[in-house]
């Protein structure tokens, strides 16, 4: 059974045209993360939510925004995609227990192409 679901799996957009990627989870986890992964590089954290509290990484461009309307769903909005934003976008969740032992579970990713 899928636990972290991302839609769509592949997204093509035009340069400058806003795009939204979605993530949902059936784990009831408190924390949801968005990572960007370029061309077989290491995933890089963009931001995360602990419940409704939003936390941005210092070097995440303003072009990237996120929304979490409820526990299950989280969205990544790219306001004006550039060619450099073409990447795999990975959503992940964790319990957020505060114990330090939580595992992050990843979705299958959305591969974004910018034309």
């Amino acid at each position, binding site marked *: 059974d899928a636990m972290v679901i991302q839609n769509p799996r592949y997204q093509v957009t035009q340069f400058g045209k806003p795009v939204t990627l979605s993530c949902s989870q059936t784990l009831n986890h408190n924390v949801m993360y968005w990572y960007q992964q370029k061309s*077989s590089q*290491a995933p890089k954290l963009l931001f995360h939510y602990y419940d409704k509290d939003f*936390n941005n990484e210092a070097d995440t461009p303003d072009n990237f925004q996120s929304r979490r309307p409820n526990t299950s769903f989280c969205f990544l909005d790219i306001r004006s995609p550039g060619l450099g934003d073409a990447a795999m976008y*990975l959503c992940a969740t964790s319990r957020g227990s505060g114990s*330090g032992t939580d595992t992050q579970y990843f979705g299958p990713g959305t591969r974004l192409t910018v034309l």
Partner: protein
Amino acid sequence: AQSVAQPEDQVNVAEGNPLTVKCTYSVSGNPYLFWYVQYPNRGLQFLLKYITGDNLVKGSYGFEAEFNKSQTSFHLKKPSALVSDSALYFCAVRDFLLFGTDKLIFGTGTRLQVFP
């Protein structure tokens, strides 16, 4: 700052032979270490983690990892490789953020190629 290093971009091994994918870490405090695997055009799948306790950690799909504090290493191993193990492997270390949250700092990845 927490970091991990994967010194090999690619590891080649024959099917049936043992495999090792190397990872070294640099942390302040106790290391919380993870291994993930990524198949083409897929997300990351959790294999195993070291938090505390036994230095030999057993994980999914027959993989295990050995934590070595003196060598600051956390190498991934499997006694007998399968062609289906061919994938990209990431080592990661936990970096604590706010209460209840943290982030993973990933290594650059090692591509494992298992030949029939």
